[in-house]
């Protein structure tokens, strides 16, 4: 049965479990994310954030349950082209092709749309360079077109990755610890950049970050995950310190663990 509400949500998670053999990595009853929301995922390392984000972005499929991306189950979204129009990923490790220069890395966002011949020619003589220039302007890296990616700093590489995302132009941005390897100032800049992009182009943003401060400042909804289960899913102003303590606190659990 298709509800009216379906069309208001870009993502709907229904009774999803991800298991590896006997181990249940993630279990989520329900999450509904509306278009244009900015959601921060908080949780300590190993809590299941990456697994959850990979399922939301249709990189992996849930073992049980279903995830609807714009009304379509993620299991049916096999085609690289359609999926790349829907979801774009930002990772902690930038994931640029180190030996390619910046303009080719940025234009790689178009690989889902260009045919093979155009893609190859672009390696030698970049096609549609204006798109790359505009994207690089947006991320404040205007004069780096011909520089090899490996020569850039961490913050610059992350911004090139975001420029590539802009060229790809997906409706949903999923960022998996995008700023964990950056210093606080650059981390703040990157988060602000992602949020600006989300606001300007009405893209939905889901990001897992470690900084509670950044989450509170830039995101309107915060989800806490611990040992694969959702601890809380609240609007930012409803987040309490007690919730955070419970989320990150391991010592009480260690005491309570059966020996």
């Amino acid at each position, binding site marked *: 049965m298709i509800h009216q509400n379906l069309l208001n949500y870009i993502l709907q998670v229904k009774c999803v479990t991800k298991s590896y053999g006997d181990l249940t990595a993630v279990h989520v009853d329900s999450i509904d994310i509306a278009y244009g929301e900015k959601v921060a995922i908080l949780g300590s390392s190993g809590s299941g954030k990456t697994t959850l984000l990979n399922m939301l972005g249709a990189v992996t499929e849930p073992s049980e349950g279903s995830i609807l991306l714009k009304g379509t189950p993620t299991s049916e979204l096999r085609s*690289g082209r359609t999926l790349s129009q829907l979801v774009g990923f930002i990772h902690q490790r930038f994931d640029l*092709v180190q*030996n390619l220069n910046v303009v080719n890395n940025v234009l790689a966002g178009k*690989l*889902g749309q260009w045919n*093979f011949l155009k893609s*190859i020619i672009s390696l030698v003589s970049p096609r549609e360079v204006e798109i790359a220039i505009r994207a690089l302007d947006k991320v404040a890296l205007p004069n780096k077109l011909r520089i090899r990616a490996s020569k850039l700093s961490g913050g610059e590489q992350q911004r090139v*990755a975001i420029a590539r995302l802009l060229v*790809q132009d997906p409706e949903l941005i999923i960022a998996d610890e995008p700023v964990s390897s950056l210093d606080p100032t650059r981390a703040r800049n990157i988060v602000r950049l992602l949020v600006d992009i989300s606001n300007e182009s009405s893209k939905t943003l889901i990001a897992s970050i470690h900084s509670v401060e950044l989450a509170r400042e830039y995101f309107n909804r915060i989800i806490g995950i611990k040992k694969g289960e959702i601890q809380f899913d609240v609007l930012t102003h409803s987040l309490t310190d007690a919730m955070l303590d419970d989320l990150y606190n391991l010592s009480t659990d260690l005491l309570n663990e059966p020996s």
Partner: protein
Amino acid sequence: MNPHKLLGIGNRGLLTLILLGIFTVSLFSLKWELNIFHSGGTKSILDMLHGLITLDISPSFLGMALQSSWITLNYAVASISLAILIGFPLGIIGSGILTPSRYSRMWTIYSVRCILSILRSIHELVWAWFFVVAIGLTPIAAILALAIPYSSILARIYADIISDVPNNALQSLRASGASEMKVLFYGRLPHALPDMLSYTFYRFECGIRSAAILSFIGIRGLGYQIQISLDELLYNQVWTLLIFLILLITIVDMWSSSVRKSLAK
């Protein structure tokens, strides 16, 4: 209880002992002749060394040595070029990266590797004899004789390098909507090209040496001249030709270093 654990040495120690043992046994299995020098041997060695001191550097001979080097170089370049042309696509196919399923990938890798091993285990001299018999004493015979084993050597290494690219950048490209062919060109080849180039240069040097030896079968080149001079026991000429060979390989080595340096910038 394992006896070697009782002795106090671990698995690695046991492996070392086994390898030493094999080495020692193989030494004793060889038939060592106590008289390895035949009676005229010492004189021959002295003659050879004498040839080094009295190099033949007459202009006519030097001119011929230069020309022979040029011929050998031509053969090497033609053969390696053909080997790259064949080996590159073979390497891509043999790496299995373009196959869709795990099953077909295993099958592809296994069968391609088998074919490559067979081609590779036949030495270029044997290929040369085969081609000379089949199509006569022509340059094509020599080029094919070198190109076939070398293309399978290159293909094998290319396959390894191409499949050994870190996955996170490739995943990123796939997430941008790239097909595996586009991932090959945008993600794998940029990472693999420096190593592939370096190894190809190394094989080019080997190719020069092989081309020199191949000229023993009658096509002109350094090896052919070395054989003529050896038959007449003109060691001074042999040394001249050998020095030309060494110079040739050294020049190629320097060229390859400068190309790799400029790539890395």
